[in-house]
């Protein structure tokens, strides 16, 4: 049997993409897309290691999931955080199969008003922490079992953004890093991909709206109306829309997909 046939033979045709026996480390799991992803991957049978710097929401999430899961309360920005989290995960679960880099911050600001501190906050959280956690996790993954890394990108990283240049630069860099990690770890059986939502109403958007209102003078209703109008499917995305794509990418069904940045935006990015 050639490799391709063997790969296909071990697949299950289960609807929900069977992840039983797999351990998924999810950063930013306390809220928003990270939380939805934890729910979705747990539904497929994965054991979740929820990582977030917010203690109460993370512990609450872990309690709400059916089965046995773990919380690690940690800020991923310090230099040694990635190594600590991976070591802690291995101690808790014995293995690591899936990493979802969902932790991130987003600021809207005019390009000439971005302070060095705000620049560092965005790039350190959205890019640097993601890189070091991905590498630490990939190094710790089992050679025979392989694994996958899935990053949260953004439509902002696909085009220029006059009002969020730092966030756009970080997310564009995540797409580039996705290709580099895919090349570096492909031989180890690890796939690396990025999912790109546009506007998904999560807690992060509460603050985004305040910042956008200050810059654009538009209300959140006006902004939402404009975005829905610009989306061919005529609705905003949901956290579940994004989590479903992540579940597919984490499954054996996607074992030949790597190095990709995939839009889940209802077609919004086609029109802007």
């Amino acid at each position: 049997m050639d490799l391709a046939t063997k790969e296909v033979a071990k697949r299950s045709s289960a609807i929900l993409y069977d992840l039983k026996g797999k351990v998924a480390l999810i950063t930013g799991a306390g809220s928003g897309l990270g939380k939805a992803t934890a729910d979705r991957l747990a539904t497929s049978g994965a054991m979740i290691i929820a990582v977030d710097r917010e203690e109460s929401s993370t512990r609450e999430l872990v309690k709400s999931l059916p089965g046995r899961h773990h919380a690690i309360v940690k800020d991923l920005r310090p230099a040694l955080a990635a190594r600590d989290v991976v070591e802690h995960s291995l101690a808790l679960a014995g293995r690591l199969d899936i990493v979802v880099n969902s932790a991130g911050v987003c600021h809207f600001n005019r390009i000439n008003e971005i302070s060095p501190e705000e620049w560092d906050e965005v790039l350190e959280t959205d890019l640097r922490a993601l890189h070091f956690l991905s590498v630490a996790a990939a190094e710790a993954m089992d050679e025979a079992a392989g694994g996958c890394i899935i990053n949260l990108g953004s439509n902002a990283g696909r085009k220029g953004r006059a009002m969020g240049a730092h966030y756009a630069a970080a997310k564009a860099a995540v797409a580039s890093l996705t290709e580099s990690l895919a090349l570096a770890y492909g031989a180890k059986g690890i796939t690396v991909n990025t999912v790109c939502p546009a506007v998904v109403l999560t807690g992060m958007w509460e603050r985004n709206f305040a910042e956008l209102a200050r810059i654009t003078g538009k209300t959140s209703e006006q902004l939402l109306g404009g975005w829905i109008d610009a989306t061919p499917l005529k609705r905003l995305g949901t956290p579940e829309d994004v989590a479903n794509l992540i579940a597919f990418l984490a499954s054996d069904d996607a074992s030949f997909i790597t190095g990709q940045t995939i839009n889940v935006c209802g077609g919004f990015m086609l029109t802007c």
Partner: protein
Amino acid sequence: MRFQGKVVLVTGGSRGIGRGISEMFAREGASVIVNYAQEADSGPFSGAANQLVSALQAAGGKAVAYSADVSRSAEVNDMVLFARKQFGRIDILVNNAGICPFAEFLDLTEEVWDRVFAVNLKGTFLCSQAVARQMVEQGIRGRIVCISSVGAVAGTTFQSHYCPTKAGVNLFVKSIATALGPHGINVNSVMPGCILTDLSEPQFLASPEVEQSYVEKIPVGRLGAPADVAAAVGFLASEEAAYINGASLVVDGGLIAHL
């Protein structure tokens, strides 16, 4: 059985990647119309479509073979009418039919150029429009998945006709995704890389050295299988991909990540 009760039309569905897609949908409960071209059902492959349909039925699937040249509008319209009479509707269209007769650019003839464009690009247009018209008329929130290629973003020496057709398919997909989105029809493409099929075997497995030269360019270290592409099509056609529209999903084991 994600596609129980769904009617799926797979163009070029009897061989190559299309065969893998037909098999996936039949296994997951759909009624599959396996379209094929006479030219793909001749010589050593004579009867391939009917053999596939028999095999799918023997495995408990629902399938029917239908011969039509996707580059001819009359044949495409007849096929869509046939689907409507036979099954009442089409829920999912997979534009998979495509040809790629390798040619030295300096020797490439106008006839071959026109034929590749007729099947790969015009065929995708004709089938998409005919099926979408019926979906809109019947109020079906359907799915269209087009099989493109990594050749849409990376040129290759002997495919100077094929690559532009696939780049065209990608932009066609993005365009009709905006046109059909408001009707609740999602349109996406899958871009396979090096996939081992009955059609590509002579190319990829010409010798162990040739095979190795392809495999070493693929980060995950293997050629793809039709089932890899079919799994991506299945995801895009499923409820879980309800918000994915106008996207191109590359299934290439990382091949183009460094091209």
